[in-house]
């Protein structure tokens, strides 16, 4: 029996990159967007309930089947390619670009306190960061942002699903007193709304 849920399953299964809802809607024009969304939800639940090694994940704005982390140990035996590794400087740079995009190199460097040209370049080469254009200020410096591949790599649905900086801070050390309020660092909303 061919029904929508299975059709969607087959599409996501053979797709070599996360499949976007929009794209599925274009491919399956005989179905309503609402129906397709429901099928995706049902499918996600199915895979969770099955208790198999595979789940339907939402990453980089699209849907993709992925293995659960419990099986990584075995899968490492299978794959020849070494797992991705990140230096602390690459992670800091990526975090800053992710939260503050669009951002120039000089701004990243001010925030990190060190030169970031090399790291930015290697992030560009790995396609985790991309050039968004040029900033409308004298000198017209290049501005950078993160890519779809960045979200896919870090298993993020979208930029909004990054923990807000407020949450990030809550995980770190508690500030000793309320003085913190005075410092206008709050850009959580900006990051959240700044997306798309």
């Amino acid at each position, binding site marked *: 029996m061919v029904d929508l849920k299975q059709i969607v399953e087959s599409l996501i299964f053979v797709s070599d990159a996360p499949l976007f809802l929009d794209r599925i809607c274009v491919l399956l024009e005989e179905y309503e967007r609402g129906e397709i969304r429901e099928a995706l939800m049902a499918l996600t639940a199915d895979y969770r309930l099955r208790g198999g090694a595979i789940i339907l994940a939402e990453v980089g704005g699209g849907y*993709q089947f*992925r293995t659960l982390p419990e099986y990584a140990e075995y899968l490492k035996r299978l794959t020849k390619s070494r797992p991705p590794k*990140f230096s602390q400087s690459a992670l800091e740079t*990526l975090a*800053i670009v992710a939260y503050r995009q669009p951002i120039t190199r000089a701004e990243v460097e001010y925030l*990190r306190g*060190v030169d970031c040209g090399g790291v930015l370049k290697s992030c560009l080469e790995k396609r985790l960061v991309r050039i968004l254009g040029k900033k409308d200020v004298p000198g017209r410096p290049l501005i950078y942002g993160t890519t779809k591949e960045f979200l896919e790599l870090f*298993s993020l649905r979208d930029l909004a699903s990054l923990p807000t900086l407020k949450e990030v801070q809550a995980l770190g050390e508690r500030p000793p007193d309320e*003085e913190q309020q005075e410092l206008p*660092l709050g850009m959580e909303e900006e990051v959240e709304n700044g997306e798309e």
Partner: protein
Amino acid sequence: MTTRLTEEPTGLLFDDRSLYSVKLESFEGPLDLLLHLIRKNELNIYDIPIADITRQYLEYIQLMEELNLEVAGEFLVMASTLLQIKSRLLLPTASDEEGNEEEEDPRAELVRRLLEYQRYKAASLLLRERDLLGRETFARKFDPPDLIDLAPDEGPLELELFQLIDAFRKLLAKMPEAAIHQVAADTMSIADRITQVLAFIVDRGTALFDELFDEGCNRELLVVTFLAILELCKLRMINIVQDERYGSILLTPAVIAEPDDPEGVELNG
């Protein structure tokens, strides 16, 4: 990146410079080092004892030098910033006496940077802990066998700007010097203007010379537009005519390009 010396047990670093107790790790920069010192001494980040922290910071840099570790320029810049803040704190503030203008705490900027950096550092640790594709989680990354028989058709292109420029960069790296020099910003904008001007003229069939100088009175743009017109003339892509003496100058396309059927002309030749 510079080298971090983790003291074990704590406190050993500044008192007893025994290399045996020193383990090598890495500091991400002066802000990272400062945060480390603040944490180690359990200081209030909002009220940093500058004299103390400066002394420790400098001792640290001195130690790195003694160990023949390369001290990056950023560390020295921060050292001078700290010394500057320290001296400003020692000066009596004139505004306090007058009572009207309250001067900002000389430490404020540094505190803001430290807090900000601390946030991104924490965010980077969260990134590090995420399930990484290819490390914790895996997906099918290959041409699916179910689709192999079906030849791919033309869809929307997916290309990143960096790929384009990187391709050009690598290409030029293989080239002799002489061919390289002319890739400058101004060449770019003339090229840009050439396409714009040509598109405008082709679009209209005929364009008035003055029309091309309409948008904004930016001197640079005027020059570039003029150079673009000259270049187009030289390439014989446009004709310039004047209908009467002192009359308006008209620009017309000399060649009607047909992008839909290019192969007949040169590509097969």
